[in-house]
């Protein structure tokens, strides 16, 4: 048995909600520790559109969620403007879409208090030239794009700055249960294979789709339904604004700009597995075929990457997964016989702050602390370590005016060596060990069209030169990194993407023969 860490609250799960709770509690002066079995945003927080909903998407299915989205969206634009690009959004319909829904849409928006402006079709096409020429309806709403990685990193960094602690690659092994209470959590560091114990007063599971599993460690049953959703990243940014399909939520109906790229999704596929999930070829084709009805260029555009996440939905019966509430579930397990255990799951990225607030309220109530939530007013600080997730960030700093000594290591996303160094030092500060995956999480490394073919090698040799790596760590990490990237690649390899991935395979298998000694 390794060391023991004592804290007031242990938050499990480093997604948007988990980091949000950590910050919220830290702001209230509560001592908090955060663990994640891999690293930040490993679940649905890192596998979504990055869309800050105006709420209009839910006006028909879930008016309450729609209103939550509206108010939280407005709030986030105030407190975290550096994570958000205020793009605005369109809702458009094409021939064949439900005309009754279209006709009803403005009224429903009004009912939820969501601003919505009908557009002349010509104007809409002028605003977004990529749109189909066959539009039959268009409305303007106030959607925005949000960078979920930056959001989590900044939330975490603020929490850490206020006395919080973060343990990545720390997997919950078991809860030690004593008299209707959790006495401690046994945690395994999957990198070092060390086990340690965390003792806290309150245990919060913010593990999204894994909420059921974590709860079961405490002997609590949460009936969950898993719905896999896949998204595609285009090679270029296709539109200025968010573009939604004006219909009941379905497949391939939202295109969100993400800095210099666009993201089109999603799908909804019922799944039982949580760990080995990939976007499938069928999903990719489905998204493209649906998406190109609204934006024809999606039919022949180069895609760089596909990814998928699992929507954690607490089962309440019903027909399809999309009709399940996407409003969040905050569960106090006192009723299940575990006093100091809370689960927060489901919900949307847009409402992460609200979820964190409600959860923290419950925690404080249990702890008997009566301090009010501050995240509503206190702006999320911007830190140096968080700036490298934003696509094109190095461009803004002057792509060709940066210091002579600063080498560009990742060509596609123009990540300079100085960025890698600052990320490495922030990981080190947190007593983590940098490898390609953890660096990629905190930067744009490997996220461009080459998907890590040569930037990986350049970054590795840079790390070796800096003495950050020794022995065969590099090549082992490279294998993990390439396989991780591959998850998002293999379903969309045709045309130029296939040419690009052949180059990657030529380098890493053809020459470096990485497959020969891989420890599969």
């Amino acid at each position, binding site marked *: 048995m390794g060391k023991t860490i004592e804290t007031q609250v242990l938050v499990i799960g480093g997604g948007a909600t988990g980091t949000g709770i950590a910050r919220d509690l830290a702001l209230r002066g509560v001592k908090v520790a955060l663990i994640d079995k891999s690293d930040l945003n490993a679940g649905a927080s890192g596998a979504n559109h990055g869309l800050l909903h105006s709420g209009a998407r839910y006006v028909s299915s879930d008016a309450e969620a729609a209103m939550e989205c509206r108010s939280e969206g407005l709030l986030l634009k105030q407190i975290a403007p550096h994570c958000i690009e205020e793009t605005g959004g369109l809702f458009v319909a094409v021939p064949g879409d439900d005309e009754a829904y279209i006709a009803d849409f403005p009224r429903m928006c009004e009912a939820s208090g969501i601003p919505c402006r009908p557009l002349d079709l010509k104007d809409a096409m002028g605003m977004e030239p990529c749109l189909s020429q066959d539009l039959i309806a268009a409305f303007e709403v106030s959607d925005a794009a949000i960078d979920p990685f930056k959001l989590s990193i900044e939330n975490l960094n603020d929490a850490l700055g206020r006395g919080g602690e973060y343990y990545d690659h720390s997997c919950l092994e078991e809860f030690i249960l004593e008299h209707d209470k959790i006495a401690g959590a046994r945690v395994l560091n999957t990198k070092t294979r060390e086990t340690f114990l965390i003792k806290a007063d309150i245990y919060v599971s913010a593990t999204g789709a894994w909420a059921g599993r974590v709860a079961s460690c405490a002997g609590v049953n949460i009936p969950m339904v898993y719905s896999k959703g896949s998204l595609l990243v285009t090679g*270029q940014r296709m539109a200025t604004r968010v573009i939604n399909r004006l219909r009941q939520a379905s497949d391939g109906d939202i295109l969100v700009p993400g800095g*210099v790229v666009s993201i089109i999704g999603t799908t909804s596929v019922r799944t039982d597995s949580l760990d080995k999930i990939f976007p499938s070829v069928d999903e990719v084709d489905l998204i493209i075929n649906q998406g190109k009805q609204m934006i024809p260029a999606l039919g022949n555009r180069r895609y760089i990457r596909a990814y998928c996440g699992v929507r954690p939905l607490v089962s309440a019966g019903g027909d399809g997964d999309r009709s399940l509430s996407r409003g969040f579930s905050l569960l106090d397990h006192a009723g299940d016989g575990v006093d100091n255990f809370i689960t927060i799951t489901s919900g949307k990225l847009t409402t992460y702050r609200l979820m964190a607030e409600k959860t923290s309220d419950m925690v404080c109530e249990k702890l008997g602390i009566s301090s009010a939530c501050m995240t509503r007013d206190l702006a999320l600080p911007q830190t140096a370590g968080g700036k490298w997730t934003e696509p*094109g960030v190095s*461009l803004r700093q002057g*792509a060709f005016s940066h210091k002579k000594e600063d080498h560009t290591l990742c*060509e*596609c996303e123009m990540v300079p060596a100085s960025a890698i160094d600052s990320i490495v030092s922030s990981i080190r500060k947190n007593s983590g060990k940098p490898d390609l995956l953890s660096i990629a999480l905190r930067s744009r490394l490997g996220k*461009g069209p080459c998907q890590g073919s040569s930037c990986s090698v350049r970054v590795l040799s840079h790390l070796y030169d800096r003495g950050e790596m020794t022995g065969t760590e590099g090549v082992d990490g490279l294998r993990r990194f390439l396989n991780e990237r591959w998850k998002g690649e293999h379903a969309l390899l045709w045309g*130029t993407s296939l040419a*690009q991935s052949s180059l990657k395979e030529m380098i890493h298998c053809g020459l470096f023969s990485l497959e020969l000694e891989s420890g599969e």
Partner: protein
Amino acid sequence: MTFFILLSIVLFFLGAGLVYRFQDIARKSRFFEKDQDTWAKKIFDLNIKGFFLNTLFQIKLFKAGKLRWLAHFLVILGFVYLLIVHAMDGVTSGFFSWYQPGIAPFRFLRNLAGLGVGLGCVLFLLRRLPRFRTNRERVKRKKGDRFRGTASILLILALIVSGFLLEASRIISEPRFDEMVEEYSGLDEDSGQMDLEAFWVKNYHLVLKEDLSSKSIDYENAASLNQEYCLDCHDRPDEAFISTPLALGAKPFGNWLARFRVDNVFYWLHYVIGLLLLAFLPFSRMFHLIAIPVASTRKRIRPQSLKKNMGLLDLFSLTACTNCGFCSEVCNVYPNFQVTGNGEILPHLKIETVKTMAKKGLWDARTVARLRSGNDDCTRCGRCADICPSGIDLIRLWESADHLMTSLGCPDNYTQVLGTSFEQWTRQDLFPKDFGNSSLTSGLADQVAAFENCVQCTICTNSCPVVAHDLNQNDLGPHQVMNLLRLGEKHMATGSRMVWHCLTCYSCQELCPQGIRVTDILLELRTQGQKTAGQIKLSQLTNQGSDK
């Protein structure tokens, strides 16, 4: 006496005018060549051959256009003759005792010279009629210039016509005859004046009030009197082949003309016009009569000394320009004008603007920016300098204009780009308006398909001689420029050194395994960057202007 006073005044005007013109150049222009060293050198650095060939024989004009040359040659030859032999006859006869304006062959020669000048002027005028102008001359010119030119021609023509009229009217004028008789013979009614009159009526076309036909005339006496008093200075006027027919035509009105002394009117007219011409010479188009010889004597610049010798503007050369437009007709980059419509590309317009700039500096941001752009388009092929009938060393002029603009704060686009900070370059409000919107500028960099296939293999950068030899100064490799395009940062890319230093050697494009037209894209980006650079320059010039 009146005449002498008038002449003195006019000569004073002329002298003062010339001094003023040359002073004006020196005083008004801050950019005049004041360097003593170069002056001293230049005095010995004359181009004597150029002076003779170009001033006297107008050899360059001959090459440029035969008809134009003919017109000039006729005018110059005739005028020089008339000026020396006729206008200054007092001086001439002082040197050559045998000279008499009224005897052969001088009468004939004078008429011939007058005819030449007149013909030349007519040719000038004809050429100015729209139907005789060539295509390129329809290029707009400064308004005042055309007027000044025509006015000068008309004035000369008037001088010649009044001269002929004067001569014709004198031939038939009785009062004039009487004055001459009185002055040179002292004859009276008794001593055969009438005989002489009759003799002159018969042989010299004199027109008398009284009819002598009824009188008896002693022609022998008349002939001897004529021999004695007249013949030294007056041959029969018939060889004045223009004035005499004119006189014959005017005979029926002879008495009337005599009564009003129209010959004297013509006399004064002729003199006044002549004096006017003299007085206004420094300010009229005819100034080129003086400026061209000055310009022609300048030593021509040679290719080797082009960069070193770029002192200041040579303003004598500037004033020698007659705006004839030959330079623009042969201009190598005339198509640039056809496409862009920037008149400052054409030498004959450019030189006017340079003149103004020489006086006023960067007086008008827009015009100066256009001049900069036009002068940068020039390839220094030298065809304008070769043809320039005024013998202006135009290559030197363009180079020094370039130099001058740079020193005044209007650099070429390349210098502008390298001197512009990243922040300033990417300021949104400086984007040229038609950036990427016009169908003609929507090129490769606007089409995703043109660069989408780039796999960032860096072969372009590896094969690039600019990257290789300018490693420490260069900012982006070609592959990074392609990547900027993918990232939607076309405008940013247009400001990179890579784009502006590209040697256009096409190594990258030849090698690109994905068939991307890398060099073509770089070149296209540079053309777009030119617009931004121009825009930034213009706004800086405008600000400079408003600061003052």
